[in-house]
């Protein structure tokens, strides 16, 4: 006789199918805790429950699926047979899919764990960006709206909110918030109180978990309330991509001087009278940026530069003028030591850092900067002649290397550290006479000159050349690489012009330059074009 008595072949009247739940999370997010809570609430309330997952190294920060099945017990008979529950979700048979992040809800759909005939999808709308999204040299983000739209079509019910933010606001983790949302969805036949009881019987952080549970519960209820269409004003965006405030854009068109202080009133009036509507918002921001960076005269210079393009711009919606305004303003306010020191010492920054640290009253906050000034960055800031002289001096080079090659840590919140940065920030008047200032101005004029010339003969090409400025950003090596790529494309321009569609060539070269850091893809693309 076997001792393996699994009690099969006993007919059970009125058997139902189990409730199934798949939780898609990333390792370390507490998905296991959430699954344990669900099992616990089921077992306490007359259900058999089973929970499986895959663990181990495959879990570290990667996607993980936790799977729970629950089946109602038949009465109180302690000798009733144990059900046979599945250890893996069956595509098309999942009642509740929980995604701790928006792209994971897309994965649930892709894997068949979220189907329109059955599944209640509970998803947090926050994004945990994937590696390719994070390492892109430009903007590599997947658009959240696409994921939301797909989820709407793929789920029977779609309950969404930024559960991660709610959790943080309540000093807890996302699992507690999601548990609240699961309770609110009422697919599991357990009450809010029964769920909270499980949290209460747990070990640590009970109060915070309950607060997050409550926030998740309410957010889930609110998410499913019928939406009243907002007809006045802009609808709040569903995702975190902010974009410019539409009200500010509107004011920039109608009354740009209302967006600036007295120093810039003249510039603002000029924007309204001499520039197309579409470019006004960017120009307003541009004059503020350049005036802060140097002075009002510099802001006027920005307008002069952009006016040169605007006069010959024949593109639709003045898109060339808009982008020329943007990239000229950005280039004119190139990142130098003075600019960095200015922003590091501002009061708004001190306040922001303190808020970010979530320090409470009575706790002290100190800030330390990690600076690694390159010799060029020092000589760049100095008056041209002095800069050139020192750049050629072996002694100076040795001295700078000795001081900086391991990097400098400056405590901005200390008297000494703040003084150093303060003095640097106050060097602003010297900038106009510096080595780099002269170089950058001639680079800007050279580039804009080309854009202006092309705007007459080939507006689309002019636009593409204008956009190439986005390659020049960052500091140190990153800046040098970007500039090198930019110049390689500019050098190729005379050859490209002879082709049938030079604008697409430049566009492709720009994408190639953004494809990798070493410039390898650009070199290949240039080879191919030749």
């Amino acid at each position, binding site marked *: 006789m*076997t001792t*393996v008595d*699994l009690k*099969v*072949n006993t*007919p059970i009247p009125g058997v139902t199918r189990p409730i199934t739940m798949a939780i898609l999370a990333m390792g370390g997010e507490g998905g296991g805790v959430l699954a344990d809570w669900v099992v616990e609430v089921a077992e306490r309330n007359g259900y058999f429950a089973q*929970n*499986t997952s*895959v*663990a*181990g*190294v495959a*879990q*570290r*920060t*990667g*996607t993980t699926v936790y799977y729970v099945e629950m089946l109602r017990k038949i009465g109180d008979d302690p000798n009733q*047979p144990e*059900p*046979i529950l599945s*250890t*893996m979700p*069956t595509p*098309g*048979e999942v009642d509740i899919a929980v995604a701790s992040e928006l*792209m994971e809800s897309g994965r649930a759909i*892709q894997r068949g764990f979220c189907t329109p005939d059955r599944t209640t999808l509970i998803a947090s709308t926050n994004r945990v960006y*994937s*590696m390719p999204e994070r*390492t892109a040299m430009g*903007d590599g*983000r997947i658009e959240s709206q*696409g994921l939301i739209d*797909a989820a709407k079509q793929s789920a029977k019910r779609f309950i969404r909110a930024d559960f991660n933010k709610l959790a943080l606001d309540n000093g807890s983790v996302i699992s507690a918030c999601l548990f609240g949302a699961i309770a609110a969805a009422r697919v599991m036949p357990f009450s809010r109180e029964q769920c909270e009881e499980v949290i209460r019987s747990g070990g640590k952080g009970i109060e915070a978990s309950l607060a997050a549970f409550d926030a998740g519960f309410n957010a889930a209820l609110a998410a499913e309330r019928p939406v009243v269409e907002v007809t006045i004003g802009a609808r709040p965006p569903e995702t975190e991509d902010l974009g410019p405030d539409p009200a500010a854009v509107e004011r920039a068109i109608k009354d740009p001087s209302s*967006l600036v*202080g007295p120093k810039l009133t003249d510039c603002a009036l000029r924007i309204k009278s001499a520039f197309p509507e579409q470019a006004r918002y*960017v120009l307003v*921001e541009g004059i503020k940026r350049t005036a*802060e960076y140097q002075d009002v005269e510099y802001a006027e210079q920005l307008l002069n530069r952009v006016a040169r393009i605007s006069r010959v711009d024949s593109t639709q919606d003045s898109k060339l003028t808009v982008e020329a305004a943007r990239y000229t303003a950005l280039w004119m306010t190139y*990142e130098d030591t003075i600019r*960095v020191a200015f922003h590091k*010492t501002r009061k708004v920054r001190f306040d922001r850092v303190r808020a970010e*640290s979530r320090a409470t009253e009575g*706790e*002290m*906050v100190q*800030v330390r900067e*990690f600076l690694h000034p390159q010799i060029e960055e020092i000589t760049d800031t100095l008056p041209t002649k002095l800069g050139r002289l020192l750049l050629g001096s072996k002694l100076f080079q040795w001295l700078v290397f000795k001081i900086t*090659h391991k990097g400098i840590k400056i405590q901005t919140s200390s*008297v000494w550290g*703040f*003084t150093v940065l*303060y003095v640097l920030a*106050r060097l602003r008047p010297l900038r106009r006479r510096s080595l780099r200032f002269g170089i950058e101005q001639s680079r800007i004029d050279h580039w804009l000159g080309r854009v202006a010339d092309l705007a007459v003969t080939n507006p689309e090409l002019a636009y593409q050349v204008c956009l190439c400025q986005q390659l020049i*950003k*960052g*500091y140190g*090596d*990153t800046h040098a690489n*970007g500039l090198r790529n930019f110049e390689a494309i500019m050098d190729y321009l005379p050859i490209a012009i002879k082709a049938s569609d030079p604008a697409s060539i430049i566009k492709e070269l720009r994408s190639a330059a953004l494809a990798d850091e070493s410039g390898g893809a650009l070199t290949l693309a240039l080879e191919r074009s030749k």
Partner: protein
Amino acid sequence: MAERSFANEVQELRLGAGAEFRGEGILAVTKGLLQSGVAYVGGYQGAPISHLMDVLGDASEILAELDVYFENSASEATAAAMLAASVHYPLRGAVTFKSTVGTNVASDALANLASGGVLGGALIIVGEDYGEGSSIMQERSHAFAMKSQMWLLDPRPNLTAIVDFVEKGFELSEASSTPVMLELRLRACHLHGSFIAKDNKRPSFTLREAIENPQRDSSRVVLPPASFIHEQEKIKDRWPAAVRFIQENELNEFIAEKREKVGIILQGGLFNTVNRALELLGLSDPYGNSEIPLYVLNVTYPIIDQEVLRFCDGKDAVLLIEEGQPDYIEQNLNTVLRRAGDLTLLHGKDLLPVAGEYTPAAVTKGINAFLQKYLPARVNLDNLPTVVLDDNDPRSPFAPRISPELVQSRPPGFCTGCPERPIFAALKLAERELGPHIVSADIGCHLFSINAPFNIGATTMGYGLGSASGSAFNAKDADKRTIAFMGDGGFWHNGLTSGVGNAVFNENDQLLVVVDNAYSAATGGQDLLSSRAENPSRSTNHPIERAVRGIGVKWARTMTDTFKVAEMRDLFKEALTTQEKGPKVIVAQSECTLNRERREKPARAKKIKEGKRVVRELYGVDPETCTGDHSCIRISGCPSLTIGPNPDPLRQDPIAVVLETCVGCGLCGENAHAAALCPSFYRTEVIYNPSWWDKSKLWVRHRYIGWLQKGIEKQRLGIDAV
């Protein structure tokens, strides 16, 4: 100390007869061992069986009460060899490891053990790391059972069944003088369930009794002529004994045996999946009341010919559901049927996938195809589960509802604050100057370097074999050196001899980086010979550098803080260019953050509560100066260093942001320094319970800085609208 504490689970191990044990599958196995009167347990950690080792590691008190010896074996070979204790003595012993990788390492000892046979029950618990979530090559442990003739148990994924098979396994082993393998699939190990416990049993014969009364029987030693006799014994004595035991104890199950003229033969481990498939097809219920005849192989090796013929008797066709490949069981069944002249048709991998995990989708589709062919009357075509529909059918769960480019893969990577990340950041920086190198990777968390953003490492040949897998690249006239990685786990497992010793002896010039994070971190943070923690029951603190010098390495350096990226980079450069001959070994030390945080977070909270001065560090990025080029992310990849919306009205690319999950490891700042990146990173230090000295400094600073800030703000004067 392991990553997780099992203090609560240990108490479950004490449960007596009649009490309900609730918990994970692998912990149920542990309880099963104690209920079986096991005398000794060994093994090598690794998912999915790490928890078995960890819970026993935390259960020294109970083990002492029961006279059970437990050790963390140096390798799976060590663990398997430990079973030699059951050769001459009636001692029950069990070992456990990840399979097939662990079984590969153990197979020399296992083959020797299986040849001579055992007197006491010998159980090898293998965690079959196959299918979703697996971190190793996809192979089957089945082959090892066949080649060495050990019996293979594959019980249903149900805690009661698993625990019963632990006991039955020992009995089968003793009845047939053969070691027995108990195979547990990934999900069975992590299955949450319950079973009714029995009392723990002290071993009837103890290790002490064995030591004090040595026995020997040279006929059990693998040396000719005994080895030839062993082979005959296996076939003539042990096999028939096993078949008898399996039949008498009804280890395999027949369900609804004669109900239809078709049937399904399945591995026990797949029972729940098969039952679910039948439920979906309307042919079973959640209690396993199948309407289709089932023959459940809870023992997958040996196959019991008589049982197969009994099940096939009177059936037109049977479907075999056997996961993985090659199709060993299918071949076996075909032989059985053919020899007996049985005309029942056998289907298997013609209707089911040849390779890959048998998921509910795969099994449901296979059974549906089989039934449509042989039992169409029982298939309700109007009510088929959607999973069997064609992918293009709009009702299918796989009907295209989302464009594939919206869902990017998310492979595992280094944790936030991982001390291994800076090693690869530094190597990337060194390679910027010295060019790319051949890099041989190893097994362990450090293998994540092969993915973005580091993209370092070209091969991985097995645990501890990082150095060995670069051994062919030993061309004396080459202008470059090769680089090999190895973890501290792999180093002590075999890397010291297979890699370092080999490189010394063969005068290989390679650079070997031993990643020493003070634990066998990838398997759950178990202690090792070189762990820095004091462990009351293990001997630790044996430095790796001393070991490699002892074996003949002349150029060896220990870097005690991997977060010093610039120093690390310079050390790489030195090792790759030094004139010194022979292998260069860098021991890159920093404690695994998961383990450190587990220890320090509560301690920190306690200190704050007690009013003591505590400094918490976190990092941030200034949005005004970040230009959104993400070069900081490309040499880090830390989950807490990500991107966010750019608040700058003119810039469009997302900026770098540091999330609240930051543990303040400091890598961002070190990278910004070493790679001369950008000045946007800053470190915030929050001082809890500041001292009077802190407070007076704050008073002065507040006034001084506040006064100067007025000057700074003059630059914005008249620019913003009032």
